[in-house]
């Protein structure tokens, strides 16, 4: 029997997604739980697997097509030694069924006017939940569907078309035109929004990382052994230092919501991570409750998930403060962009030996530039500077973290 493949239920904040890649073509044999297709949304890539063993019978939504929550995107003809659960008949997702039957057996019945309207608007059958008797799709259902609020951010028009690069050779010079991926388009939009709607500036400082490096060298092995192979990196120190400083300067931990300022009584630290698809910022929730080992583990897990495209949307929403580490790529100094609605972001950079003046002498010290970009509407220059100085002091003398001074 034919089983429909449906797009997963998208979270409330995500109105629709795009079919990214089909890994199987019509006629291919598939097994239960085998990856069939990737669906890209503004925040994550979602994998859709086969519900059963069989053959991929139909692809209703091609690469580049827009889909909505629970929309039918294809079907699998059940076959082979499949003990897979049969997907139940598509039930109305939200609409009440005012009839004597509890089932939604008529869910594929579409009234004449509804059918006409759907065809006129290129809506695939099965895309709309029916609110009529036994789940029938009424004209009203289609009218409401067509009027549903447009996506919060309209991706660049090019994103909807096929992401196939087009090579054009004009006058012997080859150009490759690639539409922006949805994720990139979204990132681009947010960045633009950040710089246009905030009064952003950056304040700098520098940190002597010797103390931290000494601790790392001394306790690296023991740490790994005690904490199940988790490596003691720099990020955990950065995060803990920031948490401490954020407690002392709550404005840096706050968010702007319209004309209100929200002071958060907790620290959710976003850690900017580079993934093959672009920049993503998973969030360490209630980071204050996390020890160095936990922080390192979480960050490592985030990195893996980002690489595999498996970050969940819940893992990336929220956040009261963000840390970005450009140093891993070799950046010496930069001005990070804010991550709205947060009001500040800390950029860490490459640790580089530099000659520094210490007690009248020149010493070579492992120095790192710190850059704090902040929203001046929220945070005064003095606060920003002092916050950064605090971070510097905590990193240069980690004992202060224990003593909370």
């Amino acid at each position, binding site marked *: 029997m034919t089983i429909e493949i449906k797009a997963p239920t998208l979270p409330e904040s995500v109105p629709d997604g795009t079919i990214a890649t089909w890994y199987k073509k019509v006629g291919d044999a598939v097994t239960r739980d085998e990856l069939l297709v990737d669906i890209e949304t503004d925040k994550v890539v979602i994998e859709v697997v086969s519900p059963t063993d069989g053959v991929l019978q139909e692809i209703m939504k091609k690469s580049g097509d827009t889909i909505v929550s629970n929309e039918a995107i294809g079907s699998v003809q059940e076959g082979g030694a499949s003990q897979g659960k049969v997907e139940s008949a598509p039930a109305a997702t939200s609409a009440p069924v*005012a009839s*004597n039957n*509890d089932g939604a057996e008529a869910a594929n019945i579409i*009234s*004449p*006017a*509804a059918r*006409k309207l759907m065809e006129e608007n290129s809506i695939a059958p099965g895309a709309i939940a029916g*609110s*009529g*008797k036994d789940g*029938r799709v*009424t*004209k*009203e259902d289609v*009218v*409401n569907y067509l009027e549903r609020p447009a996506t919060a951010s309209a991706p660049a028009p090019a994103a909807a078309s096929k992401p196939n690069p087009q090579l054009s050779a004009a006058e012997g010079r080859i150009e490759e035109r690639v539409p922006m991926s949805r994720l990139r388009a979204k990132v681009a939009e947010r960045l633009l929004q950040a710089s246009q709607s905030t009064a952003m500036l950056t304040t700098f400082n520098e940190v002597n990382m010797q103390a931290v490096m000494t601790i790392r060298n001394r306790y690296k092995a023991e740490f790994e052994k005690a904490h199940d192979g988790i490596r003691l990196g720099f990020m955990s120190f950065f995060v803990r230092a920031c948490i401490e400083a954020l407690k002392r300067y709550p404005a840096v931990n706050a968010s702007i919501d319209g004309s209100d300022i929200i002071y958060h009584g907790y620290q959710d630290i976003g850690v900017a991570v580079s993934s093959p698809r672009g920049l993503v910022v998973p969030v360490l929730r209630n980071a204050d409750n996390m020890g160095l080992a936990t922080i390192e583990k979480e960050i490592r897990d985030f990195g893996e998930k980002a690489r595999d495209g498996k970050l969940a949307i819940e893992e990336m929403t929220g956040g009261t403060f963000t840390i970005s580490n450009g140093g891993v790529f070799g950046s010496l100094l930069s001005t990070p962009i804010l991550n709205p609605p947060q009001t500040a972001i800390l950029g860490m950079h490459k640790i580089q030996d530099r000659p520094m003046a210490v007690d009248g002498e020149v010493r070579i010290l492992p120095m790192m530039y710190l850059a704090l970009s902040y929203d001046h509407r929220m945070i005064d220059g003095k606060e920003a500077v002092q916050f950064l100085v605090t971070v510097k002091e905590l990193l240069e003398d980690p004992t202060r973290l224990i003593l909370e001074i």
Partner: protein
Amino acid sequence: MATQYDVVVIGSGPAGYVAAIRCAQLGFKTACIEKWLNKDSKTVYGGTCLNVGCIPSKALLDSSHKFVEAQHHFEVHGIKTGKVAIDVPAMVARKDKVVTQLTGGVKSLFAANKVDGIAGTGKLVAKDRVVVTDHTGNQQELTATHVIIAAGSVPIEIPPTPIDQQTIVDSTGALDFQEVPKRLGVIGAGVIGLELGSVWARLGAEVTVLEALDDFLPMVDRQIAKEALKILTKQGLNIKLGARVTGSKLTKGSKPSVTVEYTDKDGEQKATFDKLIVAVGRRPFTKDLLADEVGIELDARGFIKVNEKCATNIPNVYAVGDVVRGPMLAHKGMEEGVMVAERLAGKKTQVNYDLVPSVIYTHPEVAWVGKNEEQLKADGVTYNVGVFPFVASGRALAANDADGMVKLLTDTKSDRILGCHIIGASAADLLQQIVIAMEFSASAEDIGLTMFSHPSLSEAVHEAALAANGHAVHIGNKKQRH
């Protein structure tokens, strides 16, 4: 020794007999108690509807309509008759025959479904016990796991005009006149008053209808009500609105009459009639029905209080039909009877109270379902209107019966059909198509995309649906202004 039943139904009117039959079909051991005795003092089933309501009135309406057709509307077809006369006793006898056929039909259905019909007056003495007192005074007790009360309703009497069933009659008496009254007064211009007034007006009576309200048929869409008033007045019904009856005086003798005193906007008035029909409404009948100890709750107007599943406040006791809230219509009672029976069997049947159709069986008929314009305006709904007059219908013109129109109301945004109001020949049957469509949440466009036979009266429904969306073909289209 009490006889045990799964279900005992009190009353065999449409709500009761349908409930009883459905219960029996679902496997319940069922009894149905009926106290009605016909003119021959025999127990007959069918209650008010079959005996003195829906059926006899329709029989007389059809007979009298044919008389009018023969008298006034044959000539245009080229049919020549002499003077057309009416034999009232024969007409009434035919009506009785129809009634007998149908009440006998219910008896057969009871037998076929193994429902025990029990003659007598039923009284609920405990939540699981009914005592039946027959017409000789003997009593028997029935125990029941479930009881369904379908005791129905009776005509309302008003103090100024006490019923004597001779000169001052209620609807029951009005169905048995043995001659056409010269002057007929009707108190109440509701459905029953208009139907009974029509019967005798067609046969030659001078009919005056006294209606206390200032509005004619307030529950009907205004445009349709206005059309109905115009047509009925043209047919000879003298309808006086805002006329409140304050008293009456009977004059006995060889030619009895009654003089009715009423007040209208011009002051106190008097009118004398040979017969007076009191048709001011009906009230639920619960006399000798419920022992106080059982504790069945009634509402302020005397109806048995029930929830949307027709359950009373006492577990396992249900009530359906005219004895409970809602429009006092036989089909509403029937569907409630079915609902209770099926729910007893574990099904999840519901009654859709939003789509109860109503009909006035005058000619032309008036029928409506759903919301009217006034209700939609009050609810703040923006709506479209589609109207198609029968004068533009080929079938209606061919039949020489083109009074009236079909009016469809739809939601402006979703095109969903919200109400339908029809005045015209076969309005009840035409309306039913839309009742079905509304049950399926149809839009006017759905009706528009459906093929209708030509030439048929139903096409008017199709065209009204097209008109609602501004593209009727067989009439000009008006701009929507709602």
